[in-house]
């Protein structure tokens, strides 16, 4: 952020301002090009790399036969299976989950006007975690009474999703009165509900046996390993509202960053914006948590990185967050499946291992800026 000296400003105000805007536009365009490149590269690597080594030519062949329905060489059946049934759904899930975690992080930070806000604050994560714990620990007792035999496969994601939505709804009801939603109450009630959910999850942990305990631990570390086409297609609808709302929310969040009253006087339907953001975040993050477990730090780190690079304009920050979030998660997932191959690391370990030091650095840098 270079500010032009006062003299130059007075001399030729229009020209300098135009030059600054021009420079910023170029910079933004450059960063966007870079992000698109990064995303394309990480998608290609995500499709092409894994425990089963498949040369690029055969990867393309498998994709081609999958897209066209052209029958693959019978002997290359395993290749197509790995590419089409394991890696492709995994890459798509990673794209959706990474993009939504990052965008929802940016949305929450914009809505709360707090750089430390993350999607977990509205109760999605704690609600989803509680529901997941209930299914993992108590599920075996109820499943025999339930109608579908396929339920064990889908019970966990569905419960996690509903748990996230329910918690968000309760929080929203708690923090809104007489047609207004208090952002401060939302934040504090979120912390309280999170603690309550944590206590019940803790109780379930106590009740769990060895295997359930390990399931809980693995779930809370996140993984894209369970990606299947069924999962991708069931989770997809929850991400669509985010994609639709994204272009419209940038302007509103920019106005909101001036303050709620100011935004209202600018003619912004503040209450409706808040509601839309919360619903969109609850749906997308609920779906992300349901499909991949809890993956930390993407929501906090990605928007911050981008704010440093291209500034705080939400109109560009939101789509850029989507690109970088998706790329970051895909890259982490590639590492997760390569480092200990043929075993696999939980992805939450990697995002937190990269994210936490960055987050600390950010905190320290901010402190220096304030003092």
């Amino acid at each position, binding site marked *: 952020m270079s500010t032009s000296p006062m003299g130059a400003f007075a001399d030729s105000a229009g020209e300098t301002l135009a030059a600054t805007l021009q420079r910023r536009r170029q910079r933004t365009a450059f960063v966007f090009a870079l992000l698109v490149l990064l995303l394309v590269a990480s998608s290609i690597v995500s499709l092409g790399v894994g425990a089963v080594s498949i040369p690029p030519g*055969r990867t393309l062949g498998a994709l081609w036969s999958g897209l066209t329905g052209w029958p693959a060489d019978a002997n290359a*059946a395993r290749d197509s*299976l*790995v590419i089409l049934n394991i890696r492709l759904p995994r890459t798509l899930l990673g794209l959706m989950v990474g993009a939504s975690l990052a965008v929802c992080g940016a949305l929450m930070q914009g809505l709360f006007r707090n750089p430390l806000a993350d999607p977990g604050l509205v109760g999605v994560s704690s609600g989803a975690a509680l529901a997941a714990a209930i299914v993992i620990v108590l599920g075996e007792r109820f499943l025999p009474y339930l109608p579908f035999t396929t339920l*064990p496969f889908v019970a966990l994601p569905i419960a996690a999703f509903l748990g996230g939505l329910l918690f968000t709804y309760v929080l929203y009801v708690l923090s809104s009165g007489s047609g207004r939603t208090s952002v401060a109450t939302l934040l504090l009630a979120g912390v309280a509900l999170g603690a309550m959910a944590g206590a019940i999850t803790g109780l379930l942990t106590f009740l769990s046996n*060895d295997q359930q305990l390990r399931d809980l631990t693995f779930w809370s570390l996140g993984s894209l390993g369970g990606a299947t086409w069924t999962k991708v297609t069931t989770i997809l609808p929850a991400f669509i509202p985010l994609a639709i709302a994204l272009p419209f929310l940038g302007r509103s969040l920019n106005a909101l960053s001036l303050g709620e009253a100011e935004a209202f006087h600018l003619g912004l339907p503040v209450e409706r914006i808040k509601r839309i953001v919360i619903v969109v975040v609850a749906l997308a993050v609920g779906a992300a948590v349901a499909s991949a477990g809890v993956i930390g730090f993407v929501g906090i780190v990605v928007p911050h990185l981008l704010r440093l690079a291209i500034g705080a304009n939400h109109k560009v920050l939101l789509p850029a967050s989507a690109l970088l979030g998706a790329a970051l998660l895909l890259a982490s997932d590639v590492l997760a499946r390569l480092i200990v191959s*043929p*075993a*696999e690391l939980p992805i939450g370990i990697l995002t937190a291992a990269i994210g936490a030091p960055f987050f600390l650095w950010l905190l320290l840098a901010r402190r220096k800026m304030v003092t």
Partner: protein
Amino acid sequence: MTDITARRLSRRSLLQVAGSSAAIIAFASTSLIAQDGSPKRIVAVGGAVTEILYALGTQDRIVGIDTTSLYPPSALKDKPNVGYMRQLSAEGVLSLSPDLVLVSAGSGPPPALKLLEEAGVRLVTVPDTPTAAGAIEKIQAIGRAIGLEAKASALANDVEKRFAAVAKARESVSRPVKVLFVLAMQSGRPLVAGTGTAADGMIGLAGATNIGAGFNGYKAMTDEAIITAAPDVVVMMAREGLHADPDTVFANAALSATPAGAARRLVTADGHWLLGFGPRTPEAVAYLMQAFYPDMPQVKALSASPNLPTEAGK
């Protein structure tokens, strides 16, 4: 990737065609072998599964194991590790080109197992019940899966005979000792085995009473409950990083205030030997009985049996 010329590209694609056809031929031949019922490339998931495959002499066919496959100790050194049994990676397992994946009951996650089945890999789940019959069933299930029924039956009969020997000795137990099985010391508090655990099964087989029988799974037990339960013996796993010696264990105030603490009776054994419920389980039972009832003639007679070495696993 940026400086590929047309000529290099064509040469590379030629190489790729050659390479992929070679790989296809190799893959085709492995899948031919898979059809004759005796799998040649087995991924073993679960400690007892690996142990039984080794006991059946089929270790050369194992191409991958999981992190719980700790016996024999060479397994983890020699074979690629596909990770923890409940967190398998479908692609990781597939990368070993198995024609049979033998998983212990409780392995997962379910989507990964489903993907393996979709990949046309034969997936067999081996039941895992912590009883003598369960150990026998495990051996027979694995024998059926790898097409070595006769050999597995021989091993199962042998194990059954040894189980019968310890069962006979157990009949003479008139006053069972009360046993506290400590899985770990959780910040000074013992994590105790309750019902449904492998430790509970072993205590029963050794003719003793598990004082953790009032709850399910492994739970932290309070000091007062331990003193009230008054165990005669404490059993722990001997493993690295766990100080399972009487001085450390009975430094715990509650444990020291029990009959076990007064007599300093602590029994330790290798965890997988003790809790694996595989071919070595009768020996582990005999070992426990000898520690529980050192003066009983019927139990003493067990050590004379050539089939029941008792020094193992300490």
